[in-house]
């Protein structure tokens, strides 16, 4: 897992990024990078600015500092559980076809991505409001994969999903990364998953941000102090 990435080109460089809403500083001077084909886990307590950081990276939130994506980067974004109307007359197919159209992907891409995330055609043809939490999360993942992205951003990909489904979503992400050579940024509360899949960790807190290799970060006294017993448990 911990293959050396030092010589790999960066998919993303973030230098001194800060975000403030009015007088409140949500992210203060955060710097990190993501190597091509690697996984960065963004961890931290609720309210530490993890989601805001991802939104700043996709340009949905105004930020100061430098966010530099590698040339020709195509981003696939899987947001935290979306609250959609149950009665929306849109099927999964409408939703995927819309992304195919917008990204000028081949017409067969909707079927390809549904296959990649193990969504059957009959489920894709259902209105999106009738899908279960796990099915909808897979649809969001399929949506992100349309147009063959080079980077995937996940904001707690398994929030609101039951445990067996959670494991299968993480397995799917891992498999996709292996097969497609994607760079992955993932917000997660699950430190076991982080330890198993992340090459680097970015830890966000009100006291500052810490970035490093997973092994170094998990053995850091500082991280243990800030993130509590979960990290201590993993070190044992």
């Amino acid at each position, binding site marked *: 897992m911990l293959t050396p990435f030092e010589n790999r080109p960066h998919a993303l460089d973030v230098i001194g990024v800060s975000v403030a809403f009015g007088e409140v500083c949500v992210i203060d001077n955060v710097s990190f990078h993501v190597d091509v084909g690697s996984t960065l886990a963004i961890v931290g307590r609720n309210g530490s600015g993890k989601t805001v950081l991802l939104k700043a990276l996709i340009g949905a939130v105004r930020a100061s500092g430098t966010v530099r994506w590698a040339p020709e980067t195509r981003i696939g974004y899987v947001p935290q559980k979306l609250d959609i*109307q149950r009665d929306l*007359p*849109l*099927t999964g197919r*409408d*939703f995927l076809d*819309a992304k195919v159209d*917008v990204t000028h992907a081949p017409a067969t891409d909707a079927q390809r991505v549904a296959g990649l995330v193990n969504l059957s055609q009959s489920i894709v043809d259902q*209105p999106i409001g009738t899908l279960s939490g796990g099915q909808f999360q897979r649809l969001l993942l399929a*949506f992100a994969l349309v147009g063959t992205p080079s980077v995937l951003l996940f904001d707690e990909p398994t929030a609101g999903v039951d445990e067996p489904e959670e494991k299968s979503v993480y397995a799917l992400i891992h498999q996709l990364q292996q097969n497609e050579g994607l760079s992955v940024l993932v917000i997660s509360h699950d430190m076991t998953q982080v330890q198993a899949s992340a090459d680097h960790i970015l830890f966000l807190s009100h006291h500052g941000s810490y970035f490093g290799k997973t092994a170094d970060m998990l053995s850091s006294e500082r991280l243990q102090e800030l993130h509590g017993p979960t990290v201590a448990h993993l070190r044992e």
Partner: protein
Amino acid sequence: MTYATGPGAFLIPLGMAAAAGLMGSIAVMRRMALASDALSHIALPGIAIALLVHVNPFLGGLIALVLGTVLVWAIEYRSRIPTDVVVGVIFSAALALGSLLASGDELIEALFGSPNTSDSFNLIGLGGASLVIVFIVRYRSQLVIRLVSPDLARPAGINVPRLDLLYLLAFALTIALGLRYLGVLLMGSLIIIPAATAMRLGTNLRTMQTISVAIAMLATLSGTLLAPVLRLAAGPLIIVIAASIFFLSLAVRRA
């Protein structure tokens, strides 16, 4: 009471109805039903000023709508106040201003329209309806992704503020198309009611939009045909027919 005659009497309203049906399909999915209705009232002061200075009221209404929607968009993006709050405030101000400027019969005509469509604006009307239809068809995918989540739209390469502005302008144009025929109060209803019915009956985007356009055109055509027979005003009759179809649809269970 005067009734429109000749081929233009049907062509213009049907073009307007098709545009309203398509525009409404996106509006109801974006939960903009009430905001849409209120937005239409922004035309009122424009119509009143046009009547005062003897300019075509359609033009006055269109200018007011365009200015009003750009204002709604700018306030929303600058202040992060939700669209319905912004529309609510501007709508009330526009209604008050319009009532102060117009009076009596003129006001009634502006609010409920008049069926006389035989003027030089017929061609503009058809052109406007085509423009709205082309916009919705061309931008349908972007609008669908935007309504599910703006956060999904940005990484897909969609310029969300620009799309929102274009959508509001197309919406303003749709309202303007119906001003002469249905008036300020009823045009919002022709956009929302057929689409709300279609949202209940349709299970995917294509069927929903087809049903919405079909109901808007059916209500408009039957209202226009029945108005002279029943000696009633065409505008309100069209909306009563559309609303009746909506209530009938409540009895139908979605497939």
